[in-house]
């Protein structure tokens, strides 16, 4: 009896071992298989439960898989802020704002973070400010619609043999005007793509793009700077107050990664 029992226990152990082996193998796949919605939900639950690091993990995975949205970035920013990674939080909120410039919550969070870190918002040129009125993608759509709509209205009636009407020319002129108005915004959007965020505290801006280069000045987490050049593992950036120097790519991230 005792022997039989042992044999049964032994088999049970074998089966359990095989099962657990397969479970381990399947675990990453099942994790990877979770949909963006599931991840978002998991992250929200983790955030609500005060497990901010888990929320960061889920949202990051989601974003890195290409399933990003303004809401995901906004929540990622909140979670990053809670775990004390202020630079990463500002980056996430900036990304959220670039996707949805109308979000009052994100704007308020950014203002709060900057006030807290005693950092000013970046100084924008007029065309850059103008470009923030709409998400970057919208300007492209509007400009394309304006240009090609105008061209179509001028050419299609002739090609299709329609009778020429005054309104064709009027609408075409309006569409061209819209296209022209999009020009500065597109330029501003492109200029804003040079902005990035300092991720860590006391990051040195160096004289040369080398490991042991002289430190010119230090910048704080959450500060924004404009990338002027790039060489190897370094960006040459210029922050407010004309503070410029080389920064390691690991300590700095572009709002719109290239």
């Amino acid at each position, binding site marked *: 009896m005792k022997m039989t029992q042992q044999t049964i226990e032994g088999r049970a152990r074998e089966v359990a071992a095989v099962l657990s082996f397969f479970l381990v193998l399947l675990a990453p796949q099942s994790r990877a298989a979770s949909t963006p919605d599931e991840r978002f939900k998991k992250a929200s639950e983790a955030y609500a439960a005060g497990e901010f690091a888990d929320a960061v993990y889920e949202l990051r995975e989601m974003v890195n898989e290409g399933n990003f949205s303004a809401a995901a970035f906004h929540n990622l920013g909140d979670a990053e802020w809670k775990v004390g990674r202020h630079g990463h939080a500002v980056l996430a909120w900036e990304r959220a704002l670039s996707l949805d410039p109308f979000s009052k919550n994100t704007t308020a969070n950014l203002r709060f973070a900057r006030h807290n870190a005693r950092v000013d918002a970046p100084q924008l040129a007029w065309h850059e400010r103008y470009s923030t009125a709409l998400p970057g993608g919208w300007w492209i759509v509007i400009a394309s619609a304006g240009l090609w709509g105008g061209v179509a209205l001028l050419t299609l009636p002739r090609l299709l043999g329609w009778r020429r009407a005054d309104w064709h020319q009027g609408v075409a002129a309006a569409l061209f005007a819209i296209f022209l108005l999009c020009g500065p915004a597109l330029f501003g959007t492109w200029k804003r793509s040079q902005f990035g965020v300092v991720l860590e505290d006391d990051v040195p801006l160096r*004289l*040369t*793009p*080398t*490991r*042991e*280069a*002289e430190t010119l000045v230090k910048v704080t987490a959450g500060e924004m700077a404009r990338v002027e*050049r790039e*060489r190897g593992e370094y960006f*040459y950036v210029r922050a407010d107050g004309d503070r410029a120097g080389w920064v390691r790519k690991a300590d700095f991230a572009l709002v719109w990664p290239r």
Partner: protein
Amino acid sequence: MKLRPLAILMLAASPALAVTHGAREFYNEGVTRLGKGELRDAEMALRKAAGADVESVQPLALYNLGHVRFRQGEEMLKGEGNRQQLLDSSVAAMNVAEEAIRSGGHALESDELKAIIAAYMDARAAQKDLRISRDETSRTLGLIGSALERWRRSAGDFHSALELDATNTDAKTNAEVVEQKIEELLKFKKQIEQQSEQVSEEREKVKDMKKKLRGKIPKDMQRESDDEEDDDDDEEKKEPQIGEKQKQRLGSDREVSPDMARWLKETMKRRTMSLGTQQEGEGFRPTEEQRRPSQRKGRDW
């Protein structure tokens, strides 16, 4: 007409050419200044050349910047004096202090007033020697700190030059030499720091002994100025409070008794003879500037 595209091309390339030109000019200026020994100007020019981000100029500028900073460190160390002499003088001061403590102990045991006073005077002299040694050591430590800062930067510059141009073996050699120099200097720094600690301990011992000896000297034979000297000896002279400052300016309300006047006369004479400084020995006379009341040390009687 054919020249127009060329002109446009040159016009477009002019900002880039200007940057290169500026970097080269700064580099040449820096090297010239370095040759002349004008290290500060050389550093400024070479920093500009290195910061101009011209790939052909940057490694060379960094290499020369390393030279400049190494020489700056060397210049700083010229003011430190003989290292062995510094160590020896500290040891000598500590030996004197040990001797003073020992004789103080004997005097206390014997309870003989004459021996106590003699031991007290020795302790005071020893304390003064230790103070001189401490001052000299802290001055040297300051110089070493500044030189180390320059040399570390120099090693960093050589490493950076090497990082940008891996074929620059001179930069590698120089970096190694500078690091070796830094190591040697750190060793010496550690040595004098240890000695400085010992000097501080010894000063505390001497101070304690002085207190004990002073306790044995009758009040009427004590000099108030000794207290002041003890205060001067403390490393961090406490800034007097505003109220105290006011008091000093107004003077204390004590009256000078005939006994005190006699004692003052005696001690002042004794002080000039026994503990006179070199200036006093040579017939030091205060200048008009030094005679001003604000410059006076001690109390108004």
